[in-house]
């Protein structure tokens, strides 16, 4: 026991804060991440985290609590991305990329100006990689509140979100404002990502967003179960990571703590790889039953269940949310415009 839980683990204030905040982040990211993976927006999720860095460094420059900087930049970027993003997948990726590039440039400037002013050299490291043991206890209520808001938004949208993720055309035909749903969802994503950025760092919040949910979606096809499993995996991974990081003080090199993010990331990868080992059964995904039954009426170009190669015959778009419908070749460069 002594080796597993180093002395003073649970009596330390920062550790308790870390465990609490870690739990909030893991659950929020886990639930929202399921939609991120389903919608194929991993890149947007990661970019929002990176862009939140810009807000974080801006806040650092102005001298406000970094959490607000993360939040404002994240939500603003989400809106811009959805606004200029072409609705097609590739165009969306490029729009995301360009917004991200500009934001990172700003981050570089803010950090540079910040270090000029205060001569605090550790700032870039803190902003990027986070410091879960150095959370100001005063921000904890705000963290929990924004996590709850993000969860509520996604819960309220859950059905519509699933529909727009699985089949945007069908959703549109039913009169759903796909774009509005997209913006609301990205805003919720931005909130949850900013939260994670504070806790384990902007860059590594991606790990908690994508890893557990990708793992969960490998294990189950029911969206509700996937969300629960994803939250659970995220929670376990985060707590184990925190405990290990605390223990690592006694590991070589002596008297030096290993970063929490390192442990979290390694555990997340292990979970994902392990879930890949599970043999895929031939089963009709439950997620699909409802949606696909209706989609069939709208007449897909191909029957949904032609087995291709060694791929098990599950209906398209569900496991991944990929829009694989081949676009007709136009012009000489595939899709003529981005």
């Amino acid at each position: 026991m002594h080796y597993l839980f180093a002395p003073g683990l649970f009596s330390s204030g920062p550790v308790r804060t870390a465990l609490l905040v870690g739990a909030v982040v893991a659950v929020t990211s886990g639930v929202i991440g399921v939609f991120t993976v389903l919608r194929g927006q991993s890149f947007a999720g990661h970019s929002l985290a990176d862009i939140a860095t810009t807000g974080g460094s801006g806040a650092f420059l102005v001298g406000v609590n970094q959490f607000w900087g993360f939040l404002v930049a994240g939500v603003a970027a989400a809106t811009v991305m959805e606004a200029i993003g072409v609705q097609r997948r590739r165009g969306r990726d490029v729009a995301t990329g360009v917004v991200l590039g500009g934001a990172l440039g700003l981050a570089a400037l803010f950090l540079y100006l910040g270090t000029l002013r205060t001569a605090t050299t550790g700032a870039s490291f803190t902003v990027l990689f986070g410091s879960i043991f150095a959370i100001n206890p005063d921000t904890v209520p705000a963290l929990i509140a924004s996590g709850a808001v993000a969860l509520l938004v996604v819960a309220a949208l859950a059905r519509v979100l699933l529909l727009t993720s699985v089949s945007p055309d069908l959703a549109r035909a039913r009169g759903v404002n796909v774009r509005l749903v997209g913006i609301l969802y990205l805003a919720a994503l931005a909130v949850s990502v900013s939260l994670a950025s504070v806790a384990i760092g902007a860059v590594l919040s991606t790990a908690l967003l994508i890893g557990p949910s990708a793992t969960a979606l490998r294990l189950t096809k029911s969206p509700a179960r996937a969300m629960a499993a994803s939250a659970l995996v995220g929670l376990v991974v985060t707590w184990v990571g925190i405990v290990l990081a605390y223990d690592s003080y006694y590991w070589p090199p002596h008297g030096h703590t290993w970063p929490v993010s390192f442990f979290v990331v390694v555990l997340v990868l292990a979970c994902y790889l392990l879930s890949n080992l599970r043999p895929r059964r031939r089963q009709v995904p439950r997620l699909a039953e409802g949606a696909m039954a209706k989609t069939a009426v709208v007449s897909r170009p191909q029957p949904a269940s032609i087995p291709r190669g060694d791929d098990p015959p599950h209906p398209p778009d569900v496991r991944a949310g990929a829009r694989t419908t081949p676009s007709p070749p136009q012009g000489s460069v595939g899709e003529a415009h981005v």
Partner: protein
Amino acid sequence: MFSGLMLNTWIAASVVAVVAGIAGFFAVLRGQTFAAHAIPNGAFAGAAGASLLGINVIWGLLVFAVGGALGIGLLGGEGRGRNARHDVVTALALVVMLGLGALFVSLGNQYAEETYADLFGEVFGVSRGEVLPIVVLGVVAALAIGIAFRPLMLTSAVPEVAEARGISTRRVDLYFLIVMALATSMTVPIVGALLMFSLMIGPAAAARSVTARPGTAMALSVVIALATVWLSIALSYQTNWPLGFFVGVIGAVFYLIGLAARTVAAPRPAVR
């Protein structure tokens, strides 16, 4: 501004821009923007690892960039749902490399300025010894893309036709990822991990929004990348602000100009 040490900067940055323009064109065309972000970003961890071990940074970059490319290419799989799985695997590869980077940096007691330089670039300290490997790697990467130009084009534009002709999309994907890794590993010490990506995507996306012809688009992409880098160096030299800021913002501005030009030139009905 063009004296001895700065000359190295100009040469190295120009090589970087040309390669970024070419590689970026295909990255945008193939929809591998995320990979173009993940590989340089993750390679930063290699730089941190190399300085922890006390070896030349470029080896660390090379190992991590190519390792990341292999991870993305091999785990990505193929078949249905490939795109989204690709996304997930790319995100995970990125995150794992960055996690290692965090570990290396924290173990290495490295100065924060060095981390900052790896991430955001340090273009004004290029020594003559550093210029040569950059030029060599640049030529290799450009040649590698030139050799595989046709299969790259075909698998990007009409994957179905490519498959029908017996070209494995997956193998071409992997090939391109590795070339991108090569191109990346030389550039990270110059423009920085985070902004190598802007240099690849901004100019290429701008070029593609103006023209649909591959040859013209690629040339335009290179020209815009060169213009971005040269402008950035000049401005950064004058203002002393970080180069990365100018590269990121100018790249985004070029993209917006491209979008605007397209809207003005050919107003198309919004296809939603």
